[in-house]
Structure formats: structure tokens, C-alpha cells
């Protein structure tokens, strides 16, 4: 049977989406286990012995069965739409990520641009949730979210543009191909600095401690999602972890050479996954080690330090490329 190309893409997207959701679920288990080890405890254990391998499934089932509460004073349309508006861009970013050469939904020639543009859209859903809940904690959190994400998207984009400059292309597969000789994280000076800036901006863009002021459960209880329950809460949680995973994949692609690694080419996706998980674990490690900093301090770090630094870095990279020509090595 011959299917039109659009149908193939739909099937491909369906498989990627489901594999992704499963991966996201198990990334939460990984984080919980990792955090538990850091805190000298064991973490999930009893649901699916040994070591709670069924815990993510149990969590999802529990959230599905929870009562869905809509506050009477909320702005119903905005409130109900917000989780979806939040989730869709978080899943959409995976569209342009190739997991190996020729293995992905769409290897756009503006892949990086698409990723950055779509991932900034999550702020809309976030703000809708905070506004529509009609809750003061949620509103404060939404205000913080807009502040923070706008401040950190710029350094994030600048840091992500350094490998783009080095590779001379915005296509994900081309960027990986350019790292054949030398991963961009090993590129003298600019590569390391850009990777560092990328990690810091990632923490902020993903709202992880020490930059998790929008959730800030000790001040704002749960931030913008304080009124959400049941499946809507699950969608928000899912979106957050999907975004985090997507950014880790992006980091692995841009800096750690994507699927490049020793062994046969068939091992490519495995290498890619390992690298992405490594970035995810670094972010998790930071998260469980530091206390949260204040909103004004977060903005000061972004505008006074990170933004000028990444801007200078981008210019410096431009100079390097002009002198040495694009490509690693």
C-alpha cells in the first residue's frame, strides 16, 4: 500500500510523540532517583519493585483519576485553554530534532530558529494560566514568569547562535555534521563559554532552582498552577518536563556533537540520548544543590551579566569564524 508523504509524516510524528511522552515520564523517575541519592534516601521503590519502575505510570493514572476543579471565579476559557497552550509548543520543539541522520520528523533548514521561536511560546500558556486562575499567587507568579522568560530568552538565543555561527548553518543535521572533527563544546574558548551560558540560560528558561521563582512553592505555594488539578495539572507538568528534555536534546545537538560517537552508526541515537540525559542530569544536580534566588537578583544577572556577555561572545565568534572559516577542527 502506498501512502501519500503527508500520511507518512503523520505516522512518524505519532510515533515520536508517544515515544517522547514515555521518555518524559521516565525522565521524572530518573530525576527522583537522582535527587534521592543526593539526599541520602532511596526514592520511589514500592510501585514496581525493584526501584519503582512503574512509578511514572502510577503517577499518570492517579492524576487522570483526580477530580478536575475549576474555580468559580476563574476566567473559564483562559483557564481551561492554558494547559494546552502551554503543552503544545513544548511538544512542538521536538519536530525539528533529528535523533540520527534522516531520523526525525522534519529536519528544517531553519531548525534552530524554529526551536527557539516555538519554545518561547510557552510563556503565553503560562501567563494565561496565571491570569485565568484569578488567584493572587498565580498572578504574581505569572508576572514573574513573563519577566524572567523574556529576560532569559535573549541570552539563551545568543548562546545557541554560537554553534550556528561556527557551523554556518541553522539546520540541525548540518550543525552535527560540522562537529565531525571537534565537538563545539571543545572549540577553544568560545565553545566552552557558550556552553556555560547555554546551561545557565537553560536553567532559567526551564524554571529550575535556583531560578524557579515562578513555582516558588515556599512563597507562592505552587505559582501559576496553584489552582490546577487532575489532568490539567498533569499537562502542565508534562509540558515542563518535555521542554526540559527538548532543551537537553538541543544542547546535545549544538554542543556535544549529537549522535556522533564511537561505534557503528546505528549507535548514534543511543549516544544522542546519553548526551541529552547527561545535560539533563547536570541541570538536575544544580537544582538539588542550590537555594532559589530572588526575582530582582535573577533579572540583574540576566541583564547586567549574561546578556552583555553572550552578546560579546557572539561577536567574538563572528570574528573567529571570519578568520578561521566555519566548521569544527
Amino acid at each position: 500500500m502506498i501512502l501519500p508523504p503527508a500520511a507518512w509524516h503523520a505516522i512518524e510524528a505519532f510515533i515520536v510523540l508517544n515515544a517522547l511522552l514515555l521518555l518524559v515520564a521516565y525522565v521524572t523517575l530518573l530525576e527522583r532517583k537522582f535527587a534521592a541519592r543526593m539526599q541520602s534516601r532511596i526514592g520511589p521503590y514500592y510501585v514496581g519493585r525493584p526501584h519503582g519502575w512503574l512509578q511514572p505510570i502510577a503517577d499518570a493514572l492517579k492524576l487522570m483519576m483526580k477530580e478536575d476543579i475549576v474555580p468559580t471565579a476563574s476566567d473559564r476559557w483562559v483557564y481551561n485553554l492554558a494547559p494546552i497552550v502551554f503543552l503544545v509548543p513544548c511538544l512542538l520543539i521536538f519536530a525539528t530534532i533529528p535523533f540520527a541522520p534522516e531520523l526525525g520528523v522534519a529536519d528544517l533548514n531553519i531548525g534552530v530558529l524554529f526551536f527557539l521561536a516555538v519554545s518561547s511560546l510557552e510563556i503565553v500558556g503560562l501567563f494565561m494560566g496565571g491570569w485565568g486562575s484569578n488567584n493572587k499567587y498565580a498572578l504574581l507568579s505569572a508576572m514573574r514568569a513573563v519577566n524572567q522568560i523574556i529576560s532569559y530568552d535573549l541570552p539563551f538565543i545568543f548562546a545557541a547562535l554560537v554553534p550556528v555561527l561556527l557551523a554556518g548553518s541553522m539546520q540541525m543535521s548540518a550543525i552535527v555534521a560540522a562537529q565531525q572533527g571537534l565537538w563545539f563544546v571543545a572549540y577553544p574558548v568560545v565553545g566552552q563559554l557558550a556552553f556555560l551560558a547555554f546551561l545557565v540560560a537553560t536553567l532559567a528558561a526551564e524554571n529550575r532552582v535556583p531560578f524557579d521563582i515562578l513555582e516558588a512553592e515556599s512563597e507562592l505555594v505552587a505559582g501559576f498552577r496553584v489552582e490546577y488539578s487532575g489532568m490539567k495539572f498533569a499537562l502542565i507538568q508534562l509540558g515542563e518536563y518535555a521542554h526540559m528534555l527538548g532543551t537537553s536534546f538541543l544542547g546535545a545537538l549544538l554542543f556535544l556533537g549529537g549522535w556522533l560517537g564511537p561505534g557503528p552508526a546505528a549507535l548514534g541515537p543511543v549516544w544522542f540520548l546519553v548526551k541529552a540525559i547527561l545535560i539533563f542530569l547536570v541541570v538536575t544536580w544544580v537544582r538539588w544543590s542550590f537555594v532559589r534566588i530572588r526575582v530582582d537578583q535573577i533579572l540583574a544577572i540576566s541583564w547586567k551579566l549574561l546578556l552583555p556577555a553572550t552578546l560579546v561572545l557572539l561577536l567574538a565568534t563572528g570574528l573567529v569564524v571570519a578568520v578561521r572559516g566555519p566548521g569544527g577542527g
Partner: protein
Amino acid sequence: MPETQTKQVVEVGYGGNERLMMNMGPQHPSSHGVFRMILTLEGETVVAVDAVIGYLHRCHEKLGETLTYVQYPSIASKTDYVAAMTSELAYVSAVEKIGKFEVPRRAQYLRVVAAELQRIASHCLWLGTWCLDMGGALGGGATVFLYCIREREMVLDRFEELTGARLLYGFHQIGGTRYDAPPGWDKKVRETVDFIEARIDEYEAMLDDNTFFRVRTQGVGVISRELAQEVGVSGPLIRGSGVSYDVRRAEPYSSYQDFDFVVPVETAGDCYARYRVRMVEFRQSIRIVRQALDGLPEGPISSRPGVKSVGQVRVPKGEGYTRVEGARGEVGCYIVSDGGPKPYRMKWRGASFSNLAVLPHIVPGHKVADVVAIMGSVDPVFGEVDR
């Protein structure tokens, strides 16, 4: 907060200075029990705070009048349930003062060991919950919290061996202590404090030079020396503001004059200064515990016979006030006796209550995030605030 003021400002309209009233508590992740703060916010900045207490009021002072001198010490531990030993000690010392009951030296030393171990346990909980406030339950704060609870647990195990209880002890009785140290207990206590001392080094390594921790605590919630003295704060708060005041040193009780220890003083008056004071207190408490165990005299543990009936202790007519240095500051107990088996009137001076009074003076001008950091550095226990 007067209502008129709020309404007036909201009418001003745009300009970034509209005010928002936000209710923090009584059920809130960082309200340390049941404490309600009505915050008036301009954006993220707090312009006024209205503290509402009384959600945990249990008529403790009235209870003190209806329960006999034998019964009440185990209830006294419920005022400050995080550091139960010191509130018991305050009560029995007041009764002993009025009745001029003698306390054997062994009992005095045991009381010191118990009080100092209690201080260690209480400070462990303080550090953990404070970091939880600043770092959140899903962040580095939870990590510190779990480490601290692990150490507190060891102290509670020692208390369990001593009294059979882990939170509310009933260890003290009029004229001495109710329980003697079981055989081998002092060795276990020594091991525990050695272990905790090493762990305190770890906390300091984790927090002292941690940039994120410092920017959250330094210069935040500054209590000036004058304000501290005017409001009447005590304990680590007043020592963090440059006043060297410690009841153990100013008015030694329970043979504290026998022990060699330092009263830490910091002059900055901010959250970080209070953190430093408490970290030094950890070590000083460990020092005192070691000295007390070294010099633990033999002999009886009580000058009075064991408890057989609730009306057993009668106290002559008179009144007395004693104060002890609790983990949170000066814990005072005032008793008026009419000669019967119960006090005619009793009054608690809770350290947390007086310390909490400083909040409206220092919170305005800070950000919302600082409110919880300041609250945590004050370390209130609401059983003691509301009584």
C-alpha cells in the same frame, strides 16, 4: 492594615504603585505552623505587613492553673514543642525558686546535657526548614532539610533512650529529673555529638561560601541594635544584632557557671549574621555537652521522692520568675503560688512571641521572597507564640 489606606491607593490607577493585599497563611508552606501575614504589596515589594497570631492558642496559662505542679511539666513541653526540654526546665525552676527546693548536682548536670542536646536538635530543624523556605521543597533546600533531619533524628534517639519519648519528654520534675541516664548513655551521646560536629562542618562547607545562599541572606532583614533592644528580642536574634546577651551567662542557672563556653556575637544583624550565630552555638552546645558528661557527678537525681500522687508537691505562698536560654531565646516562667498543689497564676514569656514582634519593623521594603527568608531566620515556633 487599615482598610481606608488600601482603597485610597488603588484609585490612583496606573503608575506601577497599585497595591495588592495578599494573605500569607495561616495555611501556607512556609508559615512554620499556623501564622498569618497580611501583606500589602506594590509589585513584588512588601510595603506593610500585618501579623495575625492566635491560631494555635491552647489556653496554656489557664491549664497551668488547673494542673498540679506534678502534672504540668509534661504539658509545659508542649509550649515550644521543638525544644521541649527548655520549657519544662523553665517551669520546674520557677517552682523550685518559690519553694526553695534544692536540686542535686547530678540532676543539674543532666538538665544541662538535655538542654544543650535539645538546642542542637532545635537548631538542626531550624537550619533545615529555613533552607526549605529559601530553596523550596523541590530544590536545594530540601537537600539541606533532609540532612538536618537525619542529624536531629540521632539526638531524638538519645532522648528516647533517656526518657522513652522523642518529642515531649516530661524529663524534669520538681527537685530534679525524673529519669537517670541509662548505663552507657554518655558514651552514645559522645558519639552522637562527635558525629554531628563533623556534619556541621559539612553544612558550613555547603552554605558559607555558597553565592546563592549569601545573596539571599546578606543584608536581608537587618535588625539594628537599637531595634533589637527596644522590641525585646532575645536569643540568636539579639546576638546577631551585636548585643552579647545570653541568660546562661548573664544569670547562670542549673550550674552553667561550671562550664566554659563562648557567647557568639555578630554585628551585621541580617539573616546571615543570625545564621552564623546559630552555627557557632551548635559547636558551643557540643562543647558544653562534653564538659557536662566529663564532670557528671554521682549521686541522687532528685531531692524529692518519686511521684506517687498528683497533689504531692506543695509550694509555700509566694511568687517567682525564672528564665532560661531556650533554643530561640529567653524562655521565662512566672508563677504565683497560694500554698496549694497548683499555681494560683502562671505566665509564660515565649521567646518566639517576642522575637516575632520584630517582623513588622523589618519586613516592609523587602521582596516577597525575603519575607519567608526573614521568617525562617527568626525561627518561631507557634506553640510558643500562641501558647
